Each structure stands twice: as structure tokens, then as C-alpha cells.
């Protein structure tokens, strides 16, 4: 550690002010909750701190980052990096947090509201830090910052058997996945002698993907397995249906959105899909390696199988479900599969500029998926009352008669999940499969088949999503749904519905696409300063 590195390290704190704001607010709410209970007070506090955090983020995003030699040193030594991808994800996390706070406004019991909201704030901070992580240790800590409050959050609002089972199941399997992740990290450290992700990638890249020691494959597989748990990629998905079903609705919405975001960002970082300048520098005499393949040249084929397996399994099992939350859990697995298609194609697309970069498509789809899934869960929460819970698909019968506008919004979410045009789901799928079709060379046929598998899956998805729409519109209820007055819940719904449509057509689509492109603005173009 030289003086420059120390100075850079000392300078990192001001960039994580948004997360510090969230942490301070969370602490305050934890303590305050022991003095005064009441969900409205603490909901306002949480909302305020999220907005404050967003505001602080706009300021810190303007801070000058170290550049030149200092920038290079920062890349290879500091535990956190604040590139545009990090800022993009942090904004997403905070916006998702705002939606989830509104969502849970009337869902959480008064007694637990403060604890619940404080945990939520910590999770949002954790997602933000995951996006910034540039070191295996900080990445792991950030991911745990997401996991640990999640255990509490799943347990807090409900105490029945199902909720306990869900919390415990998630707890045990999450710990298991963390262990796997750490195991992989230790191999990465053993291979390269550093925990800095940029340095690891640089070192491995210098060796050229082909003749990598077998240890790298083990590291790759365990890291993907550990993160696969968070993104619910099959075969690491099996907890999802039980946990979603048992968890409170808002907890399920959170599980479906934030860990997925964090998991995919972590994959992008660790496997080197997105790297800062000067990391992937070709070495003379070594084969040229594509981004994302620094660890192993088997990465795309691994994701190919993972994607095909995940989406097929998710969709086929979703067809069999009657419970709404279980159905959405399997749908979440299926959508993870579509996102993995983007990752599988990403290395081959990194050098083609037809607007179908796999990482862009992935980020777009993450946003689209988050919006429509949170919306769908929000509808379930909005309609459920203790006297007449909405658990099964059949419980939605006749919704179009009793709640025409809510039914319309749920229909929008479902059509978006199917991938009908004029919804964000369509644009996202379009970008992903456009990317898969855009792969050229030897792999072209392989990826065309993947696209065909994906489209057939989307059609299977049509069957069960359509069932929900059919139940709402084509059937009448035996016991009409009552619903209740819940303005914040309604606001969540409306925001999600507006975003689902708005992000698919101009100008919303263009804004999001630009943001996504800026997020990965740091291109991995080789810089002249070669050897470190």
C-alpha cells in the first residue's frame, strides 16, 4: 500500500454518502421504533430517507472521480468503484425501495413496522454497495447486507407456520449459497493473490482464456452457483416457490426484485462483463479474450445451458401452479432464464454495435421485470384482506366486475410478463432475443436455437399468465373481492402500470435505453498502458 492508494481509500467515504444516509436512517428507525410504534410515522421516515438518499446520490454522482494514474490505481486497489453502472443500479435500488415502502404502507403490522422498514433500508443500501463493489470482500459484505435483513424481513410481518418455514428455508439456503460463493472467492484469491476484482480479471485475462488452470473452472462454477441462488437460476431456484408462498406478499415482491438485481450486477462484475478501463488488456501472443470470458472461455456455454434449463423449468412448472405467489415464483425463475440468455450472448455481442449489447438488454430487462413483478405482487396485496385472502388464481374471479381498474392494471402486468407489444416486457424480450439472433460466426446456430427455445418458453408463459387474465375477465366471483381503501398501495400499482407501458414506448423507452447505454459507457477498449 503506497501513499496514493491510502489517499484513494480515504477518499472513498464521501462517495458512499447515499448508503450512509440509508444506514443512519435505518439505525434511527430501529431505535425510534422501540420508543414509538406505528407504521405511518416510520413509513414516512423511510420514504423521506430514501428520497434524501436519492438526492444525495445526485450530488455525489457529480463528485470528480480520480482519473489518469490515480484512476488506474483506484481501479486496481480500492474496494469500491463508482462508475456509471454503479450509479444506475443505485438509482434503481432506491426507486425500487420507494415503491416497496409504498407497497408495504398498509401491509405490515404496527408493532413490526419500524424494524421492517429499517431492514428494507439496509437492503437498499446493500444493493447500492453491491453495485459499487470492486473487491471480493466488499462484494461479499454487500451481498450479506442484503441477505441478513432479508431473513428478518421475511419473518417479521407474519408468524404462521408457512412464514416461519419460508424464513427458515431462505435462511439456511442463503447461508449455503454464501458459503459456496466464499469458496469460489477463495479459489479466485488463490489463483491471483489478490481480492481486488479488477486486478483478478486483469491477471486472469493476461493468461488468455484457453489455458486456464482447472481451478478457475471450479471458481467459476461455485461463484455462479452462489449467485445463481440470488437470481433464482435453476437448479438453484428450488427455494423460491415455497419461500414466495410463505412469505408476506411484500417480502415476495422484494425477493423477486432486489436480490435478482444484486445477483446479476455481481455476475457482471465478477465475471468481467463490465470492467473499468485498462482491465482487459490483450497481451501480445495470447489469444484475444472477449469480455465475460476472462475466467474461462466456457462462460457463454455455461450460461447457455443455465438459461435454457432455467426458463424451461420455470415455465413448465408455473403451468401447474394454482397458488398465485407460487406461480409468480416460477415465473420469476423463468424470467431469470430470459435474462441469462442476454448474459450468454453478451460476450459475442460486445464488439458489435447494432444496439443489441447483451448487457444493455439485461439491464433493460431487469428494470422491466422489476416494475411488472412488483406491480403484480402489489395487486395481490392490494386485494387481499384477512377475511378474504387472494391466494389462488381462482380467487381473482370476477375482478373485472368489482375492481375494473385494478383488473386492467393486473392485465397490463400479465401481458407485459407474456411479452405483448406496448409493454416493457416486450421491449425487453425484443432486446434480449435480438441480441441472441445477432451472434455471428460458429456460435450463430447455437444462439438461434436458444432464441427459439426462449420464444417457445414465452408461449408456454402465455398459457398461465393468460389464465389469470381469463379468470379476472371471463368468470364471475362466488364471493366478490372486497379490497379496502389503501391509497399508497394504489399509488404503487399505478406507478408500476404507468412505467410498464411508459418504458416500452417513446419517450420513456428512449430515456431508459439511453440510461442503460450510459450505464455501461465504460467500454473495455484496450488502453495503451498495458502491463501493470
Amino acid at each position, binding site marked *: 500500500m503506497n501513499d496514493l492508494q491510502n489517499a484513494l481509500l480515504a477518499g472513498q467515504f464521501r462517495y458512499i454518502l447515499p448508503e450512509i444516509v440509508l444506514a443512519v436512517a435505518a439505525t434511527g428507525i430501529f431505535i425510534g421504533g422501540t420508543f414509538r410504534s406505528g407504521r405511518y410515522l416510520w413509513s414516512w421516515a423511510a420514504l423521506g430517507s430514501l428520497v434524501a438518499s436519492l438526492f444525495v446520490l445526485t450530488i455525489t454522482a457529480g463528485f470528480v472521480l480520480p482519473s489518469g494514474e490515480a484512476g488506474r490505481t483506484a481501479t486496481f486497489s480500492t474496494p469500491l468503484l463508482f462508475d456509471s453502472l454503479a450509479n444506475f443500479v443505485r438509482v434503481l435500488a432506491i426507486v425500487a425501495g420507494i415503491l416497496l415502502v409504498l407497497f408495504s404502507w398498509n401491509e405490515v403490522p404496527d408493532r413490526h413496522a419500524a424494524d421492517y422498514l429499517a431492514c428494507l433500508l439496509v437492503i437498499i443500501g446493500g444493493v447500492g454497495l453491491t453495485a459499487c463493489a470492486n473487491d471480493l470482500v466488499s462484494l461479499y459484505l454487500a451481498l450479506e447486507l442484503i441477505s441478513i435483513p432479508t431473513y428478518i424481513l421475511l419473518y417479521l410481518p407474519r408468524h404462521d407456520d408457512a412464514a416461519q418455514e419460508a424464513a427458515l428455508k431462505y435462511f439456511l439456503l442463503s447461508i449455503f449459497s454464501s458459503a459456496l460463493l466464499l469458496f469460489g472467492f477463495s479459489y479466485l484469491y488463490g489463483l491471483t493473490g489478490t481480492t481486488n476484482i479488477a486486478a483478478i480479471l486483469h491477471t486472469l485475462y493476461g493468461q488468455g482464456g484457453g489455458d486456464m488452470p482447472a481451478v478457475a473452472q471450479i471458481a467459476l462454477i461455485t461463484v455462479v452457483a452462489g449467485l445463481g441462488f440470488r437470481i433464482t437460476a435453476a437448479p438453484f431456484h428450488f427455494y423460491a416457490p415455497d419461500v414466495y408462498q410463505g412469505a408476506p406478499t411484500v417480502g415476495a415482491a422484494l425477493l423477486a426484485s432486489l436480490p435478482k438485481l444484486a445477483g446479476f450486477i455481481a455476475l457482471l462484475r465478477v465475471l468481467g462483463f463490465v470492467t473499468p478501463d485498462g482491465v482487459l488488456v490483450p497481451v501480445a501472443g495470447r489469444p484475444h479474450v472477449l469480455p465475460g470470458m476472462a475466467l474461462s472461455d466456457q462462460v457463454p456455454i455455461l450460461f447457455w445451458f443455465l438459461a435454457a434449463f432455467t426458463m424451461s423449468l420455470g415455465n413448465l412448472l408455473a403451468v401447474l401452479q394454482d397458488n398465485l405467489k407460487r406461480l409468480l415464483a416460477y415465473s420469476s425463475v423463468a424470467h431469470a432464464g430470459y435474462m441469462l440468455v442476454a448474459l450468454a450472448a453478451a460476450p459475442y455481442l460486445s464488439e458489435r*454495435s*447494432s*444496439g*443489441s449489447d447483451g448487457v444493455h438488454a439485461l439491464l433493460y430487462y431487469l428494470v422491466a421485470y422489476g416494475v411488472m413483478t412488483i406491480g403484480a405482487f402489489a395487486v395481490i396485496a392490494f386485494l387481499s384482506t384477512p377475511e378474504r385472502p387472494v391466494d389462488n388464481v381462482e380467487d381473482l374471479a370476477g375482478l373485472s366486475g368489482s375492481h375494473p381498474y385494478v383488473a386492467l392494471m393486473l392485465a397490463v402486468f400479465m*401481458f407485459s410478463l*407474456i*411479452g*405483448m*407489444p*406496448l409493454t416493457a416486457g*416486450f*421491449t425487453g424480450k*425484443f*432486446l434480449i*432475443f*435480438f441480441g441472441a*439472433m*445477432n451472434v*455471428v460466426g460458429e456460435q450463430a446456430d447455437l444462439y*438461434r436455437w436458444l*432464441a*427459439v427455445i426462449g*420464444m*417457445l418458453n*414465452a*408461449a408456454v408463459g*402465455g*398459457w398461465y399468465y*393468460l*389464465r389469470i*387474465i*381469463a379468470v379476472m*375477465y*371471463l*368468470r364471475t366471483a362466488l364471493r366478490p373481492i372486497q379490497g379496502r381503501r389503501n391509497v399508497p398501495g394504489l399509488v404503487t400499482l399505478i406507478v408500476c402500470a404507468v412505467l410498464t407501458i411508459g418504458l416500452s*414506448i*417513446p419517450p420513456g*423507452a*428512449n430515456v431508459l*435505453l439511453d440510461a442503460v447505454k450510459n450505464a455501461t459507457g465504460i467500454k473495455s477498449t484496450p488502453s495503451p498502458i498495458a502491463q501493470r
Partner: protein
Amino acid sequence: MEFEHYLLHVLLALPLVGAIVVALQGPKRQTAVRRISLGVSLVIAFCSFILAGRFMALERPWTAPQKPTERISTTFQPEFVPGLKSTALHDAGTDWDLIPLGAGTVQFYLGVDGINLFLIVLTAVLFPPCVLISWNQVHERVNEFYAWLLALQTCVLGVFMAFDIVLFYVFFELSLVPLFFLIGIWGGPERRYAARKFFVYTLTGSLLTLLGIMGVVLAVYSRTHVLTFSIPELVVLVNQQLAIQDSESRAYWLSIQMVVFSLLVAGFAVKVPLVPFHTWLPLAHVEAPTAGSVDLAGLLLKIGVYGFLRLCIPLTPDVSLAWGLPLVTVLAVIGIIYGAFCAYAQDDVKKLIAYSSISHLGLCMAAVYSLTATGLAGGLFQMVNHGLSTGLLFLLIGMLYERYHTRMLQDYSGMATRLPLFGFCLMFAVLSSVGLPGLNGFVGEALCFFGIMEEETTYGGGPFFAVVALSGMVLGAWYLITMVRRLLFGPLKEPHHDGPAIPDMEPREWATFLPLAALCLLLGLYPHPFLATSQPDVDRLAHLADAARQRQQQDVQARR
């Protein structure tokens, strides 16, 4: 900018605005809802006639380029494009950008040419009868019904007008949604299953179509570094690439065309439907309300054929010739015979007409895939014919069902004595459908047969197919006339009904019947304006097919 450039927007936006207005009326104000819908659909029909008039007045000469490599740009540009960069030079698509994707941009690119003009008019003309026929049939959630009906019209018009390949797909896919609700809410006893089956069947196909669309766009991009979604531009670029005499390029494009062709066909074949993919159709037809059946048979099936004309043939001419021609023709001919026999076996009149649609559409597809100028023109003409005559048949069956609440043939007999005017109308529609000279069906079928006869294949299949198809038409006459005999003639047997005597055709019903019947007569007696207007565009398509034929012969010679 002249007012034609707004006309397309009016046509597209009017039904949508109408749908929103109608939906907001609430379920109570039924009469207002019906009147607004009727008014809107009449205005649309009127606009479409103006459009047709202006288009027919245009001078659109076209001569085929002599050499295959000669630039054939500009020639696929449609007319009346809103937001055209410059009205003088028709080669740059439109200015109305939607979503930029890297180097290219998805555009809001609408237009009219000889292929889609009459389909647009057909769409506009079929809707006022749909509104009228539902006047007394639909009593529940009336506002939603008409809103979905008008939304469906927007989608179908959008499919026909779109000249941007992604926009085309967007409308193509969106058209499922209104019909899903129309069948699912206002349909028969099996409506939920029918609606879901219809939706998922067509969704599966159309998602694969989307991949095909991406495939052709990206193939053009990787070869020419032009990323475009404009159909005319794609057609030009693809055919320029195809004309390159280079074995590597030739092999590449053959494999790409194979991929694109199979993906596109997956969607359109379900929509048409070609035979193994037809099982959703009878179910959807039987369960749909009358207006839904009319739209389904009259318009939705045409989208499939239109997809073949607009995308499949121009974008994959070589594979269309080498594989599509035998494959599609065989399937279509099987469909003609199979549909006819199935239709004969039906007791449910609606199902009978549904199967007759499979049979008729088979003829259409066989003609289109003869890939000759005559066959293409015949197929196009037959699309419009089928829309009119099958639309009429469904409307008339709807009227009968409204009176007696049964569609089973064994419940009826000798109805001509009870409802003579209705009998006349049904007879007219049946004769139009079986191709009586003097009515529209005859012209279309004759052209189709000529087209199939002309078909030049290496194995001389044309005449054979034509004979089989012709026998299919004889079968068509057989089952339709049988239906008429059982329904209208013989000893009188009236289904049980409550209340006063059943009235014959009412004024409202005449208003649904007469305009369509008049068009049938007009097209049957004087088809020339229609054929002349679509001639240049059909010739362009045929030219592309001829170029593909030349290339095929060159390949055969080279192999020798």
C-alpha cells in the same frame, strides 16, 4: 403535405379514439354506445373509400428491370406515407422515429400499396355490419364489447398499413388481445378454453415469427452494415444481396433464408391456418360471437396470407421457391380437401363455415405460392372475396341464431318457406362463396387456378395441384349446397321458439347484408379496377420470384 398523408392516421386513430370514447360511456348507456360505434365505423368505411379512390387515381407504372443486378430500390416504397422525408423522392421511409436501436431505428412507418389497399378497405367495410349484427345480440357489458371491437379494427388496420417490420409485428401481436376478450367474454359455452387456445396457438407462432423478423434484419445488417426495419428497404437490400453472383454469399443467404423462412412460416401458417396448425380455428369460430367470427374469418386469417405476401415471399424468394412452393402448396391442397370433407361432416352451421374457411384459404395459399403473377393476383383477390362472402355467411347464420338460438342443421328444414328473404340472402352468399360466374368468387377462383396451372416446377406439379384444388372447389359447392338444401328446402321444420312469429329480414339486417352483397356483385361483374390497381405491386412480387427462378436454374446448370 397533402391530406392523404393524414388519411392513414385518421384511419388508424379513429377506431382507437372511438374505442376509448365507447369504453368510457359505461355499461348503462347501451344505445349511445351502439350509435357511436356505428358512426365511427361508418366514417372509417367512408375514409377507406376516399383512400381507395385517391390511390386508384395515382399513376404507378412499373417495368421490370432487365438485369437482375439492376437497382430495384424505390420500387417497393408505398404511397401516402405520413411523415415522409421528401414527397418527391420515395426512397427513405419516414421521419417518424420510434425507438433507436443502435445504428437503426424502429419507425412509425405506414403506407398504402396495391397489396394492402383492398385489405384496408375490406377491414373498414366489414366493421359496420359487425356493429349492426351485434345490435341485439350483445346485452352484457356492451361498452366493453364495442370498445374491443373497435380496438380490433385499429390493430388489423395497423397490420395492413405497417411498413416497418417491427411495427407490423406489434400490430400483428396486439390483434390477439381484443379477439381474446371478444371470444372469452361474449362467446359460447366453451369460450374460455377457446379463447386461451386461440391466443396461445397464435402467440406461439407469432413469437417465432418475431425471431424470423430479427433474423432477416440482422442478416442484412451483418452483410451490408445497414440496420433497417423498413420493409421496402429490407426487400431491396435482400434482393440485391441475393443477386450477387458469389458462391460464398449465395450459400450464406440460402442458409439465412432457410432459417428466416421456417420461422416466419411458423407464425403465418398458424394464422392462415395451414392444415396441421388449424385446430384452434373451428373451436374459436364456434365459440366466438357473430361479430368475432366475421372478423376472425374475414380479417384475422387474411393477416396470415398477407404476412406471406408482404414478408415471406419478398424476403426469402429463393427458399420460398425451393421449399415453400412444394411444402406450402401440398399443405394448402391437403387443406382444401380436408377442410371440405370436414365441413361436409358438420352439423353445426358455424363449424361448417369454419372448415370451409380452411378449404378456401387453402386455395388462396396454393395460388399465392404458385409464385406467378396470375396466382399472386388471384390469391390477393380471393382474400378479399373470402372476406366478403364468408363474412356474409357468418352474418346470416348469426341472424338465424338470433332468432332460434340453435345452429344445428338437424333442427332446421325448409326454412325458405318461413323466411323467404333470408333464404334468398343465404343463397346469394353461398353462391358467392362457391364461385358462381358473375359473382366475386368466380373471378378469384379462376385466377387462382390459372396461377396454379402456370406454376413452373422442376417436377411439373402445377397441373396436378390445380386438378386437386379444382376438385376441392367442387367439393366446396357440394357441402355448401348441401347445407342450403338441408336448411332451406324440404319439409318445413322450425325450431321451437317462444313468443310471436319470427320476422323475416329486418331493415337493420338488410343494412348489414346489402353493402357487402353489392361489393360481391361489383367485384364479380367488374373486377378490372381492382386487378389493375394491384397489378404493379403484384408484378413486383412476381418479378422477385422470377429472379429467384433464374437463380435456381443457374444453380441447377452449375451443378451439371
